């Protein structure tokens, strides 16, 4: 039987279609967002420059200056708050330290804060990020946390000289160690992938009672985010897979209104990383 040439044409087209789709899937699987951030760091630095100019042009100069001052003061207050919390924890743990330690010792807190301004906030896809107006020249490094008083914004993933890119919490790959209210019931908080203020708290032990309206905080079981940052409130909870409970959480942070944020630096990050490396070996 003779095979018509049109069959080969059609087969060729199908093979080409499969090959091109496979190539696209390969690119997607490489998590293109991060890859491209690294490759296009220079381009984005130029883009960020223009975005910032554009943003500044739209704002009244003095008001912008005032906001920066307030953000700077907030960063100082957060650092102070973190230092005082650390002092209280230590004094509660060992009252003998009360007489031995200089309570003004600034090194007690392992977290310190710096403020930054959001110059671009990508929100309309499943893979969102923010670009901040501070970079390596301001001491920003990869894997620093980004927070506000109302929750967690994301984690720094790419740093240029004057700008940095933080992968937003509104990303399917982002997970935060969280706790429920003051019960110290720990779980994993991740974006629900649907709305800008929806999240899911999972892996809560089934004997823990979850009530609607319970507040969710960062657990502190992370070298990136400090403990007790309020994240949101429980709206609904249920038992999943017969093993754990999960809860729908309404986030406090309105990601559409991000303007000034705080970058969290963990002073002990190098030591923690080296110990983690030691443990792996």
């Amino acid at each position, binding site marked *: 039987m003779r095979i018509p040439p049109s069959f080969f044409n059609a087969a060729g087209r199908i093979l080409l279609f499969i090959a*091109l789709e496979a190539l696209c899937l*390969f690119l997607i699987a490489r998590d293109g967002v991060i890859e491209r951030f690294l490759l296009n760091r220079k381009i984005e630095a130029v883009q960020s420059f223009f975005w910032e100019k554009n943003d500044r042009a739209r704002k009244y100069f003095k008001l912008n200056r005032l906001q920066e001052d307030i953000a700077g003061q907030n960063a100082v207050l957060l650092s102070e708050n973190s230092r005082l919390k650390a002092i209280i924890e230590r004094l509660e743990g060992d009252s003998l330290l009360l007489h031995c330690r200089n309570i003004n010792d600034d090194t007690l807190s392992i977290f310190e804060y710096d403020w930054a301004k959001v110059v671009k906030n990508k929100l309309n896809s499943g893979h969102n990020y923010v670009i901040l107006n501070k970079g390596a020249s301001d001491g920003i490094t990869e894997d620093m946390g980004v927070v506000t008083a109302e929750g967690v914004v994301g984690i720094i993933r790419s740093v240029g000289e004057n700008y940095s890119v933080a992968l937003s919490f509104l990303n399917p790959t982002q997970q935060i160690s969280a706790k429920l209210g003051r019960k110290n019931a720990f779980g994993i908080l991740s974006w629900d992938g649907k709305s800008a203020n929806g999240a899911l708290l999972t892996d809560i032990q089934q004997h823990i009672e979850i009530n609607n309206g319970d507040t969710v905080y960062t657990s502190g079981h992370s070298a990136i985010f400090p403990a007790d940052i309020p994240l949101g409130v429980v709206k609904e909870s249920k038992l999943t897979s017969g093993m754990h409970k999960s809860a729908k959480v309404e986030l406090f942070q309105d990601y559409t209104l991000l303007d000034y944020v705080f970058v969290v630096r963990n002073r002990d990050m190098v030591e923690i990383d080296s110990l983690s490396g030691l443990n792996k070996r």
Partner: protein
Amino acid sequence: MTGARFIIFTIITLLVQIFIAEFINLHQMVYIVITPLPVLFLPYNYSKSLTMVFAFIIGLLTDLSYDGVMGLNAAALVAVAFFKEPVLKLIVSKATRENLSEISSATAGKGAFALVSLALCSVFFLFYIALDNVLYFSFAYTLARFIINVLLNTFIIMLAEFTLFRGFLEKR
């Protein structure tokens, strides 16, 4: 449409797409896309394989030029190019197809063009949403996102074809 005119049209479409993606954010669920237009307007008798390669390049340029997942627009546009011929065979009669230089409301008829646009938008968003939502699939959310985007973008393509691009396409 001449080759030079088509290239200009494609570049304009890409620039408009970048502008839309950067500055027009209606809602998190909504993605306005006009890059299927050059693929749609490629002459019907143009090589189908080259149409797919062309769609792949346009898709990659879109992915590169603004912030999305690399390969997402490319995958969806290649699918549009691949299914363009079967969709046309289903909707447009053979006699009309044989006389088609390019697909538009003037050559294929308004109703047929609307159906072709709707079908190709469906193909685009079937691939786009399936790949974008692969990590957190929710049926209701995905279906709602699909329907909203297909209807909105079909409307936009029709509007663009009837108004903005009609004069440009008809000039020879």
